């Protein structure tokens, strides 16, 4: 069974975006000045190698996500650090909408369905792991619907101060199980978590 992975950059204070002008919480803002250390780049590319599908939010597609990474791939055709950009162009993309999207994008399947049904359709079609890229609202909705199998957070060593979050007060009784944590030379901590189900929590309690 394929899984849905959410991968996001997050600040050390738990925000995925800052509303403070000039905030430098993010080591890399996805622009041309890529300041991640080699170990983070390698981790990022290795993750993409195993991805069979990409779930995107409609706003990200509308804002030119695919065009941007296609340009980056074209600018770095032989650079192993930019393997992920070429991979974005290669794999099947999915966008789920409940509002009847009639636009089209290259190698992208538009699924007009409720979120949970649409995600399931995307996973089935991809025949493998699907990674989600979206804004805070989209990821929050996926978490709210309990659709995320793995949460992969690139915790930046910078403070956002104020901004958008993927978690909210309705999730205050939820817990996650740490799968793996990797420290990196540039200071990013890569954490991978799965949702801790009630049965797992009970087992942990019995074992202690």
């Amino acid at each position, binding site marked *: 069974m394929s899984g849905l992975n959410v991968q996001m950059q997050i600040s050390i204070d738990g925000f995925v975006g800052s509303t403070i002008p000039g905030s430098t919480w993010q080591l890399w803002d996805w622009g041309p000045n890529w300041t991640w250390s080699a170990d983070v780049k390698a981790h990022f590319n290795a993750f993409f190698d195993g991805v069979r599908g990409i779930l995107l939010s409609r706003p990200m597609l509308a804002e030119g996500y695919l065009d941007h990474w296609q340009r980056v791939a074209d600018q770095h055709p032989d650079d192993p650090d930019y393997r992920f950009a070429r991979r974005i162009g290669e794999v099947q993309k999915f966008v789920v909408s409940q509002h009847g999207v009639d636009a089209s994008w290259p190698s992208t399947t538009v699924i007009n369905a409720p979120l949970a049904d649409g995600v399931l359709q995307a996973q089935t079609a991809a025949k493998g792991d699907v990674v989600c890229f979206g804004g805070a609202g989209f990821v929050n909705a996926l978490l709210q619907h309990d659709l995320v199998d793995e949460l992969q957070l690139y915790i930046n060593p910078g403070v956002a101060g104020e901004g958008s979050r993927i978690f909210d007060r309705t999730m205050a009784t939820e*817990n996650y199980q740490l799968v793996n*944590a990797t420290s990196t030379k540039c200071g990013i901590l890569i954490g991978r978590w799965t949702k801790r189900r009630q049965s797992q929590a009970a087992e942990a309690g019995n074992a202690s």
Partner: protein
Amino acid sequence: MTKIFNALATSMDGYITRTHLDPSQPLGDIGSPFLDWNKDSEKPSNQFADVGLCSANGPLLSFVSAVLTTSTPMAHELPPCRPEPAMARNRPTPRVAWTTRTALK
């Protein structure tokens, strides 16, 4: 030169307590399993008899406790994020040790 470091348990979304703190509720409102991850009991803490920690957090808390309780705290420094192999073998090493950019200057 004295170094001041701060070790805090924080939730995934960046909080260190719930709201409405008072002396009877030092972590704030009761009702959510805040910091319950500290009770996974995969690895008993070397320093606190009643606390069982998950394997990732046990070494960190033990290290912090050792620094705070030693008679010569100046001799201790936080290990780097990526310790050399011998260092990792011989003593507990925190998985995370952030310092501010200011402190690094």
